[in-house]
């Protein structure tokens, strides 16, 4: 494989969250009832004109910033002309001349290396109607017609399926972090076209560009890239298949790509400036306001968790993929919980609990501050780890502050040496045979004795002190 350089460019459509459609005031929301959220604009009755949704522009500009793009001082919209029954106007309003962002750049990290994805542009446009195909006819539902989309187009600068996946994960997470899109590929909120071809060692393209349309999930993107790269290499090396510039689709069942059409059938979209939308001045202060709303982003968090908090890449990803969870984690660290400790609490106790209860972290009773209380009490030795876990569970059951529950359930380590010494002496007295065995080399019996101490103190014995006393006694 190293003989060839894989060149990948991605075109991604994301459905934008808003109350209304991008050019009409009818509702932007999924509905099982066909043609429920429609008006004359969505169906393109004669004489309709677009009226641009401010919220959709705001969200598109926000993503433009997330992707490190340059925002123009004014926006323009263009028409993309083509005929398809799901496009009632016979053209789609999109952006070519002055889109919400151009020339962006995103720094990412995958498999222990940094890489950069350059963004050609991001633009705001409208979605089409949806069609249901039956044996002899097709039904058209216009609920989706005119709902806002942002399309993100990368430069052909991605060099592996893994990098493509990392970018898509970053993008999906960012869309959610910024509340721009639910970005669920399975629900069609995010649709990805993948362009692939190969270069030789001299940096020359040796295969024509192939576009794979509408790949249905992030993992399929990896499969599609792997299949297509292998196909192109094989065809190039053996000549058994002629390579042409074409559009293919990914077949999920066989995990292969299948030809849809070649370049000869390509449509000329006859783009021109949309005359019904005047230029839109973008106020600097508005941009500033939008920028302030952007949280720290998943790529920055991922790298920080790995480099600074010593989490593994997969541990870091677990947190980063969920904005609220990641925020919870950040808050824990901000108030002084050790990053590794905080991660362990999340991964061993919290995430499992949330999954079991079908709950999100937002509704989770134990705030970072409560968690810190518990962790601090363990660290100071006031309670044992086991008691810490108990306290954690009491909090969830009784929905009460840990400080109160600690007192209520008398969770406290026994660290009075005299008292412990009495208990230990008693244990040793009843187990003389075992002491002998211990001295004869069965040192793992030390654990048994500690266990006995814990049993008799109902787990309240401070293990550090208990160990110290026991060590002294067994000398």
């Amino acid at each position, binding site marked *: 494989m190293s003989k060839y350089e894989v060149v990948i460019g991605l075109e991604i459509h994301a459905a934008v969250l808003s109350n209304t459609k991008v050019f009409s005031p009818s509702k932007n929301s999924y509905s099982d009832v066909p043609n429920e959220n429609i008006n004359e604009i969505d169906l393109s*009755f004669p004489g309709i004109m677009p009226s641009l949704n401010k919220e959709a522009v705001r969200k598109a500009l926000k993503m433009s910033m997330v992707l490190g793009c340059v925002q123009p001082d004014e926006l323009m919209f263009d028409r993309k002309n083509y005929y398809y029954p799901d496009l009632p106007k016979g053209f789609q309003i999109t952006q070519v001349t002055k889109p919400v962002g151009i020339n962006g750049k995103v720094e990412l990290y995958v498999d222990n290396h940094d890489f950069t994805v350059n963004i050609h542009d991001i633009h705001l446009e409208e979605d089409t109607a949806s069609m249901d195909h039956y044996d002899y006819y097709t039904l058209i539902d216009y609920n989706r017609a005119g709902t806002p989309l942002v399309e993100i187009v990368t430069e052909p600068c991605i060099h592996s399926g893994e990098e493509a996946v990392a970018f898509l994960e970053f993008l999906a997470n960012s869309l959610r972090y910024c509340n721009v899109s639910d970005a669920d590929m399975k629900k069609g909120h995010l649709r990805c076209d993948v362009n692939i071809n190969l270069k030789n060692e001299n940096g020359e393209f040796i295969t024509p560009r192939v576009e794979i349309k509408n790949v249905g999930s992030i993992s399929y993107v990896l499969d599609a890239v792997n299949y297509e790269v292998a196909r192109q290499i094989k065809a190039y090396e053996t000549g058994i298949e002629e390579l042409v510039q074409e559009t293919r689709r990914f077949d999920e069942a066989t995990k292969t790509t299948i030809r849809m059409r070649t370049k000869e059938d390509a449509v000329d979209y006859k783009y*021109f400036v949309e005359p019904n939308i005047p230029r839109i001045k973008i106020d600097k202060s508005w941009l500033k306001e939008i920028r302030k709303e952007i949280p720290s982003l998943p790529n920055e968090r991922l790298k920080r968790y790995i480099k600074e908090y010593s989490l593994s890449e997969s541990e870091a990803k677990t947190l980063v993929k969920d904005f609220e969870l990641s925020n919870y984690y950040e808050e824990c660290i901000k108030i002084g919980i050790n990053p590794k400790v905080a991660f362990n609490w999340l991964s061993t106790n919290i995430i499992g609990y949330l999954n079991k209860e079908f709950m999100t972290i937002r509704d989770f009773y134990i705030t970072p501050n409560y968690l810190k209380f518990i962790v601090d009490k363990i660290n100071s030795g006031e309670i044992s780890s086991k008691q810490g876990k108990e306290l954690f569970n009491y909090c969830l059951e009784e929905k009460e502050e840990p400080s109160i529950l600690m007192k209520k359930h008398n969770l406290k380590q026994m660290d009075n040496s005299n008292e412990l010494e009495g208990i230990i002496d008693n244990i040793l007295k009843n187990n003389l045979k075992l002491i002998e065995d211990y001295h004869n080399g069965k040192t793992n019996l030390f654990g048994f004795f500690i266990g006995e101490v814990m049993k008799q103190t109902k787990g309240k014995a401070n293990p550090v002190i208990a160990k110290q006393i026991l060590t002294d006694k067994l000398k």
Partner: protein
Amino acid sequence: MFEGIEELRKKLDSGKLKVKDLAQQAVDASKKVNSKCNAFVTIIDKPKIKENKKSILSGIPYSAKDLFSTKGILTTGSSNALKDYIPFFDATVISRLKKSGAVLTSKSACDEFGLGGTGTTCHTGIVRNPYDENREAGGSSAGSAVAVASGVVPFALGTDTGDSVRKPASFCGIVGYKPTYGLIPRYGVLPFASSLDHVGVFTRSVKDAAIVVDSIKGPDSKDMTALPKTDDLTPLLDGNVEGKRLFYIKEICDIRSYDNPSDELKKSIKLFNEIIEKAKKLGMQVIPESIDQKLLNAIQPTYQVISCAEATSNLSMYTGIIYGPRGNGSNINEMVKDYRAHGFSSLIKRRLVIGSYVLQKENQERYYLNACRVRQMIIDKFNELFTQYDGFITLASGGGAPLFDGKTEVLSNEAVLENHLAIGNFGGFPSITIPAGFINNLPIGINITGKVQDDVNVLNIAYALEKDIKFKGGLHE
């Protein structure tokens, strides 16, 4: 009826005339005129009346070009493609007129979807000039011009993409006014070329034109190109034009610019010169200016390219899927093709092919974008002149209405004089045609165009000239 809006208002207010009777008069007159001139697609037998005592237009009947969407009333665009289409919403201007209590009595025929300048491509047949039934009424707003000229209604709505209000106004001897682009919202008006399309009005006096525009202008949340609120025009009409400066273009309105002028052209220019003398007597200065002949020659091709390009896109919505008669075909493309083949007239089809051609990737630079550049140069030239002048005065046509010659409208090199009103559409300039007199017993108009958002000045110049011109709009039998 040949009374103006104010006169009718007085009669209605005094009780001399009932709203219902006035509407009935309009309906009856529509039928009579229709049998002669074929001006209407729909005559509304029982027009809805909902008075608004606060508005001057309350109870006043009017006609709207069949490009204006009217809720519950057939709206065809004068095309077979929409021959059975009934909108469920009103165009913004229609709903504003409804609120003001004006009474819609007919939908008037026009060139199909507003493409064309003859009134001969309507799906209901050709529209005839009330002065001579063997002649055109001009287009595309042919029926609306006929309605006002024949005294059917005191005002009618039209649209103007190249000269579609101002040219038929000239041929029918009435006032045709197209305000600044964006002054009147276009929402609900069937489009031709959106960057050139204007809503305009036909009346028999300048003041009536101002009155109607005042009640339909203003911002519209449904039209992003609509301008913010402006002062009403009617109260600012004072006819005071002392010291105003007008220019005309030597290359267009000076007989010496023509090698072999026809008799008709000579007469037209003579009439134009008489108007100029009148303007001077009113205290205005009228100065000839020269514009590069090449730029003038480019007006028509520029208009053709831009308007066809936008039309090809704007008319893409007509597929027969959601509205309009369904085409036949075993698959969806055949179905749409059949609908469009039968729905569109030959002229439209040819325009759409041309529009598509000039937008194609490999042609776009040479055709479409260069046309847009020439458009900018023409706009710049006129804006430069408007820094020194209050208005541009010109003949609205080179003569009276042409005869139906049996030829269909084919794109050709016509004289600059027949196409120069498109300048007003290129720059969105306010532009008004008023009757100037008769040539060979046919009416002819002059046109005043001014700078963007200076409608008051343009109207005032027209208002002052109108008082001094004996011929009043309308065919008084």
